[in-house]
C-alpha cells in the first residue's frame, strides 16, 4: 500500500512540475487537474472519504471547468 502511495506521490509531483513548465495554458490547467485527482486518491488512502469526495468533485471537476471557460476569453498561450 505504501509503495502505491509513493508512486502516486512521484506522479503528482511530476504533474505539478509539468504545470510549472508548460507554456500552453490549456496543458497547464490539465496538469493541475491531474494533481487534484491524485490528491483525491491520497486523501482516500489517508482514511478520509469525505475529503476525497469533496476534492474530486470540487477540485478536479469544477475548478478545471472554470479555468477552461476563463481561458476561452483570454490568451491560450503564455506571453
Amino acid at each position, binding site marked *: 500500500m505504501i509503495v502505491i502511495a509513493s508512486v502516486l506521490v512521484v506522479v503528482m509531483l511530476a504533474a505539478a512540475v509539468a504545470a510549472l513548465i508548460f507554456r500552453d495554458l490549456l496543458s497547464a490547467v490539465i496538469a493541475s487537474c491531474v494533481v487534484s485527482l491524485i490528491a483525491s486518491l491520497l486523501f482516500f488512502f489517508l482514511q478520509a472519504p469525505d475529503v476525497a*469526495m*469533496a476534492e474530486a*468533485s470540487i477540485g478536479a471537476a*469544477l475548478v478545471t*471547468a*472554470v479555468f477552461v*471557460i476563463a481561458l476561452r476569453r483570454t490568451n491560450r498561450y503564455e506571453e
Partner: protein
Amino acid sequence: MRAVVGIILLAVVAVGIGLALAEVPFGAPKTEVGGYYLEHGREETGAANAVTSVVVGYRAFDTLGEVTVLFVAALGLGAVLTAAGAKTGRRDVQPASLVLRSGAKLLFPLIILFGVYVFAHGHLTPGGGFQGGAVIASAFLLLYLGDRNRRISKARRTATESLSGIAFVVIGLLGLSVGGHYLMNFMPKGTLNTLLSAGIIPLIYVAIGFKVGAELAGVIDDLVKETA
C-alpha cells in the same frame, strides 16, 4: 535581483516547513479534542458520520461562516463580470454532436438525483452538503456542454439560493428560541443509522446542498455568459 530574492524566500520557506514537519510524527495520536468528538459524538449529535457531527453539530457556526464566504465570492464574481461592455449576444457556434446532446439531456436528472442522495445521506455515509452541491453544479455544467446557448432561468436559481440560505439561518434562530444557544440541536435524535435521525443535521445539509449547488451553477453561468 528579483530572482535572488525569490530563491532566498523559497529557501527560508522550505527550511521552515521542513523543520516543522520533522517535529510532527506521522501516525501518532496527537490531539484530545478529536478523541472527545469520536467518543461522545454519537450521543450528543446522533450522526453516524463523525466528520458530519463535527462540521454541522459541534462547529455549525464555522459552517455558517463558510457558506457566507462562498456567497460573497459568487456575489463578487457576478458584480465584476456583468459590468459595462459585457457581450451578451449569441455567437454562431457549431452545435454539439448528437451523442453529447442526447446524453446530456438523459443524464441531467440522474446526476441531480445522485447529488440529492449524497447530501440527504450526509449524516450516515461519506458525503454531505458541499459534495452534493458540487455534483448538482456539474450536472448544470453538462447541460451547458450539450447546448451552448442554453441558459438556466436566473430568477429560479437566485430564488433557490436565497431561500436555502435563509432556511439555514432560520433553523439556527429556531434553535435559539427553543433552547439556549444559536443552532442548538432541538429536534429528536432518533435511532442511529436511520435516515430520520440526528436532529437538525439533515435539514441543514439539505439547505447547504441546494445553496451550494445553485451558487456554483451561478458562477458557471456568469462565466459562460461572459465568454459567449
